[in-house]
């Protein structure tokens, strides 16, 4: 009895001690790894000197939910990859619900992975500046990615450099990123309204629906997810006035056709004051719910359920929504409305999607070989993007596909980094969306500052505080929740000054000036 007791105690003691020691041990390991990344470009790549002699497992970090038939598709994919470059891939998925928190942690903890999905909206500049990605030299790219080196336009490489260094293999898929709105065409016809193609006709549509359709939100937005702008701002403020915001976490913009790139505070413009009146008018006519800033629902799902009559998004998403509803509820008629049809359009820069190599990867060369095939080998590209032919999609010719019953089982994650001219188009993609896209492409406006990237290292306090002010003062103002909009705007501007907007503006202007001077 006595023996048994002391044995148990000893056991507990040893167990806990082991836990402590192993925890300390792994800490040291992590420290060692981060130490190794001090020299991003030299070390890791050379260690595995070329060739595909040794079979390697390449770990990928992808954003989005794990597709249901991941095992089947990646099993097939790995067979092909094994054949061609003697490597297999193993993907880890960061779910949409909390990827923004997990993604930086993966780097901070220096976890073991080789390839990471990244994009201008997914921490690309941030991680590149912090040293999370391996610098990719032209030699490495030429040697390991012959197909991509051949196919990628030089400007795409140029656009994805940070401080003159390449950290990303961008996707190769020109598109326009302007936004449009999706409306209920059947309701528009019911009330005999003019076609929606301008801010005024849209306001008319929204107000009519709000006045006559009980239980429907005429317009809806997911304002509660930390987004610091009214969801129509991109259309009604930027596109309408041909401005470009440098970064969506601060209210600083320049005019597209201003060659000197002069930056101004958008809240301090007559255009914004006018837009506030427009929003206030909509809000007072119940165009959106009074609780729009606490909305927790998925707006598209609300629209499908007939509870919302319009929302704003980019063209590709709206086109997919349209196709989805046509399949599922053919009796409901939707239309995509472009509220600023005559304005200049901005082309997506290549960093809209891409893949980068982790700074501490020991398998950089092979990773690049894999990326080369994912983006530019027809067979592997099809597998990675659409799954297994006949199961997850049905090939239509060389460049189109039809969705099948299996499509939902392999979709919804960030394989877009491999977008390329080999992409197939959905054969049921709505013709009107195509028409809008073609029209937009003719109006694409190219400008010097297109590829400018703001480095906020010197002003991170101001960026954090300005963002906070926008969330607290601008969002309620823009959704018409503040009674006196002139006073609200004065408050907003005053608070921004206190948060250091002037310092931010000076810093941004000097970076832009330097950027333009170097061109």
């Amino acid at each position: 009895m006595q023996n048994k007791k002391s044995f148990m105690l000893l056991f507990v003691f040893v167990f806990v001690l082991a836990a402590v020691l192993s925890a300390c041990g792994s800490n040291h390991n992590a420290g060692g790894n981060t130490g190794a990344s001090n020299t991003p470009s030299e070390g890791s790549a050379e260690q595995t000197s070329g060739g595909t002699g040794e079979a390697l497992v390449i770990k990928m970090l992808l954003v989005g939910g794990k597709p249901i038939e991941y095992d089947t598709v990646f099993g097939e994919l790995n067979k092909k990859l094994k054949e061609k470059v003697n490597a297999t891939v193993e993907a880890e998925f960061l779910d949409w619900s909390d990827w923004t928190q997990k993604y930086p942690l993966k780097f901070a903890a220096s976890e073991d992975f080789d390839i990471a999905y990244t994009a201008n909206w997914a921490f690309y500049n941030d991680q590149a500046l912090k040293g999370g990605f391996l610098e990719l030299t032209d030699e490495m790219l030429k040697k390991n990615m012959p197909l991509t080196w051949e196919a990628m336009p030089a400007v795409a490489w140029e656009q994805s450099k940070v401080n003159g260094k390449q950290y990303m293999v961008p996707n190769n898929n020109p598109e326009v990123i302007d936004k449009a709105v999706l409306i209920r065409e059947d309701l528009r016809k019911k009330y005999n309204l003019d076609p929606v193609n301008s801010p005024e006709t849209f306001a008319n549509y929204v107000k009519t629906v709000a006045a006559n359709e009980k239980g429907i939100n005429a317009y809806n937005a997911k304002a509660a997810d930390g987004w610091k702008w009214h969801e129509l701002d991109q259309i009604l403020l930027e596109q309408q006035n041909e401005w470009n915001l440098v970064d969506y976490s601060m209210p600083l913009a320049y005019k597209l056709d201003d060659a000197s790139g002069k930056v101004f505070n958008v809240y301090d413009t007559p255009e914004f004051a006018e837009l506030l009146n427009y929003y206030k008018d909509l809000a007072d006519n119940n165009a959106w719910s009074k609780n729009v800033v606490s909305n927790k629902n998925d707006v598209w799902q609300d629209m499908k359920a007939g509870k919302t009559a319009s929302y704003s998004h980019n063209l590709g998403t709206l086109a997919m929504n349209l196709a989805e509803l046509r399949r599922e509820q053919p009796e409901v008629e939707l239309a995509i409305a472009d509220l600023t049809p005559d304005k200049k359009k901005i082309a997506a820069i290549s960093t809209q999607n891409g893949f980068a190599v982790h700074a501490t990867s020991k398998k950089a060369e092979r990773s690049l070989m894999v990326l080369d095939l994912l983006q530019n080998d027809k067979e592997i590209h099809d597998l990675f993007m659409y799954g297994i032919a006949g199961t997850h999609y049905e090939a239509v010719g060389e460049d189109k596909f039809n969705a099948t019953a299996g499509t939902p089982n392999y979709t919804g994650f960030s394989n877009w980094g491999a977008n390329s001219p080999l992409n197939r188009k959905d054969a049921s993609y709505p013709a009107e969306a195509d028409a809008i896209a073609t029209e937009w492409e003719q109006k694409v406006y190219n400008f010097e500052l297109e590829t400018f990237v703001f480095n906020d290292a010197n002003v991170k306090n101001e960026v954090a505080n300005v963002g906070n002010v926008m969330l607290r003062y601008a969002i309620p103002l823009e959704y018409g929740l503040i009674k006196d909009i002139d006073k609200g705007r004065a408050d907003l501007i005053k608070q921004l000054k206190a948060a250091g907007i002037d310092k931010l503006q000076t810093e941004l202007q000097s970076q832009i000036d330097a950027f333009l001077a170097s061109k």
Partner: protein
Amino acid sequence: MNRQGFWGEVRKNKVLLMMLAPAVLFFLLFAYVPMAGIVLAFKQFNYDGGIFGSPWNGLDNFRFFFDSGNAWMVTRNTALYNIAFIIVNNVLQIAAAILLFEAVGKWFRKLTQTVMFLPYFISWVVVGAIAYNLFNYDVGTLNSILTAIGLERIDVYNTPSYWPFILVLVSAWKALGYGSVMYLAAITGIDTEMYEAAEIDGANVFQRIFHITIPNLYPTIIILVLLAVGNIFRGDFGMFYNMVGNNGLLFSSTDVIDTFVFRSLTTSNEIGLSAAAGFYQSILGFATILLANYAVRKYDKDHALF
């Protein structure tokens, strides 16, 4: 007695010390070892340097918090909310524990306890969704009832003044079951002879409660309150974030340090800035607990924590 010195003591009490070891190791591992990470509050973090190799930047990381002009407001909100939570929750929990103790009928007691305990297991995310469905302007339960009986709708999500009450209420609702179990355990531990004696002396229920139960609960109350006071500058992030979210209109009365820091830094991922904010909270918390303990010592030495 102390002839054998330190090691003698150790040998003599080795069983007791071993029993203590897991707890000590736990805190060593999860509280003291990570404490070295506090240096991050004074550093410009980058991956190359890691935690210890990154360059120092003095008090720069603290600037964001104090320059924002919101430092005072969020600190005040955090403290006031926590004080309200401590008072309201403890009073209700003690009351519930006493009522449960006095209640007759085993079934009734168990059932009530279970029902009270239930909210403790509901995640704040779910509570946030429930609240939204109760309070939203267009289709919320509250407003549906109000319109049905001919009253005006109230716009809860755009009116900051309702929120202190809502938050205190929700917090009390959620913590009631869990907290009352602790007090109930303490009450069950009170010597029954005292009650018997009181009964013989003709004390009624209220006299029993106020002269026996509550005085005997003092040590428990003081310990629980002291422990809670140490966290007075830490807002319950899950609660505030899920109940209020990013609704800027309500921030003046609902923003606490934790939500403010989360909102400011979630997009920039500046570990140094968050570490600085956490450090600030820890310092304030440390000062408060020292102060509170000092006050208790003044009043009654036996009841102080240390």
